């Protein structure tokens, strides 16, 4: 019986495993191969990449932008998720539904929508001019700020959902316990709820971070001159059929992403430890 059960459960994993190997592992290895075999072994792509300021500069900008987007998403999503998780079950579903609605729209359309909102003759400027706050349109579109706004709006639902599902795991009696033991509401949140929900928040932030690292349409549409992402460079090289070089950029992006994820995880662990053991509230 037990053995049979075991067999069934591993068997259920096979399709997923197969998909992972066939559509993720093998292509990734192939990209790795393409970056160093062109057609025989060469390090020229990496040499070129690391020898030029442009690529590392863009990598740094991509990382910085992604970290900031993930941070903003985490900070905004946290109170929203907390609010939802405190609602009765039926209301929770309703609020999650609201959160999900934007996900049904393509990133491209949402990016264009932001152009309409933020533009020179867009909604916000029309309002500002109409109300007499300004005579000249304020420059909002084609700035790094616009990239943050658009990307946060696009990625926020993902952060909320991850954060929310982590919060539902927390026994709300713990908050009661904290209160009766002497904690004011904010102390209960800071010393009990926050440390327990931080893992989920960090997971969400990491997902948002990784998605941001691969973004290119939105920054290209609403961003300024300097909002160039690593993915833009990859796309350009692919169009030029420079497979090897495109692969090398991808590998650098992949390594950069993985390193950043490791660092974020480390930092969050330290942060949680601080919050738990940390001083007297």
């Amino acid at each position, binding site marked *: 019986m037990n053995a049979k059960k075991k067999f069934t459960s591993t068997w259920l994993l096979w399709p997923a495993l197969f998909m992972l190997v066939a559509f993720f592992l093998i292509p990734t290895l192939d990209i790795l191969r393409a970056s160093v075999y062109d057609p025989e072994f060469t390090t020229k792509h990496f040499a070129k990449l690391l020898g030029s300021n*442009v690529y590392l500069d863009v990598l740094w900008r991509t990382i910085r932008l992604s970290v900031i987007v993930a941070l903003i998403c985490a900070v905004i999503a946290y109170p929203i998720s907390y609010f939802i998780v405190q609602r009765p079950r039926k209301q929770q579903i309703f609020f999650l539904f609201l959160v999900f609605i934007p996900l049904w729209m393509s990133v491209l359309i949402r990016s264009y929508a932001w152009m309409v909102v933020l533009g*020179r*003759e*867009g909604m916000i400027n029309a309002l500002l001019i109409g109300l007499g706050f300004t005579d000249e349109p304020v420059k909002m*579109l084609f700035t790094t700020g616009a990239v943050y706004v658009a990307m946060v709006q696009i990625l926020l639902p993902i952060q909320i959902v991850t954060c929310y599902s982590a919060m539902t795991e927390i026994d709300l009696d713990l908050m009661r316990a904290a209160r009766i033991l002497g904690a004011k509401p904010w102390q209960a949140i800071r010393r009990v709820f926050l440390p327990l929900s931080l893992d989920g928040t960090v997971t969400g932030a990491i997902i948002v971070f990784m998605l941001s690292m691969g973004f290119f349409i939105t920054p290209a549409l609403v961003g300024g*001159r300097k909002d160039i992402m690593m993915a833009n460079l990859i796309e*350009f090289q692919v169009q*030029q*059929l420079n497979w090897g070089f495109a692969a090398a950029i991808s590998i650098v992006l992949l390594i950069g992403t993985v390193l950043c994820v490791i660092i974020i995880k480390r930092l969050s662990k330290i942060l949680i430890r601080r919050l738990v053991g940390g001083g007297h509230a």
Partner: protein
Amino acid sequence: MTKLLKQFAKVAVATLVVAGSANLALAADKEITFSGSGGVVGKVSKEVWWGPYTEATGTKINHVAAEAKRMPQLEAMVKSGNVLWDAMEVSASDYPLGVKKGLFEAIDYSLVDPDNQLPADTREEFGVAYAAYSQVLIVRTDKLPDGKKMESWADFWDVENFPGPRALRGRAEDNLEFALLADGVPAEDIYKVLSTEEGLDRAFAKLDEIKPHITTWWTSGAQSVQLLSDGEVYFCPSYNGRITTLVSSGIPAEIVWNGGAMHKSYIAIPKGTEHLKEATEYVKFRTTSADRMREYVTHLPYPGWAPGLFDGMDPKMAANMPTFPANQKVQFSASAEFWAENLDAIQERWTEWLLQ
């Protein structure tokens, strides 16, 4: 004996007849696969080109809407020996790439253009220029200072006399040429100048002047139209065909042909196709049928050089055509070779320059 011979002859004739009709049937079932633009271009082409082509030759056309990354696809096909396309559209910048990688069949001009009527610069070894589009300056006429008219790249650079937000495309191609034109380099010398280190520096130096006045650096044609129609920018280079979208939605805009970059599109035959004969036939049809092409440009502004194309064309319409002699004269021909050669290095410098 004679009887026997007669019988034999009968059988032979019958066999021939049957075989012949089978051949005919086979001919009628001939089909070539053509990889071309999807969307409106595909829709119009079906009506204007493919239908009439099948009528004329009996060969059907199976259209595969081309994706953005079709060169990588082609390369994969040729390498694997499994060539699914018989003819395809090739952009001017893709053409040299395909040639370099040996992805095309050589064109047999004795079949395509036996009377040598096509302009010499449309007859390439591995492809025939069948249409042109231009990267031209588009101006919002309602945003121009009273009584002024923008006529050149020098005007585009002149932010004193022509104030207002501007955009450029976010790639080095065309922009460096525009910068040199604005700096006074004659059109015929652009690529000679660009090929030198000083010339390149000169182009970037000129771009430095305009850089602070560029609102955004667009990445897709649709975006450039959006920018102009939303009033985000007043002056912006874009594809000549995009003017129609603007004008038809009531946006007062016009093309400055002077200094436009003309890009030819080629039709080519993937190496290793099984239908070389039919594909060549289609290339001839697509490049030299003036009446078809005239009809085509009533729908889409991508004319070619079919002999006699402008005979009897509405002069107003002819004036919007990049290959109309008066327009072609003031434009320069974008050098796909130059860019194929230098794109890598220049684009890197371009990106670095953008980030400064």
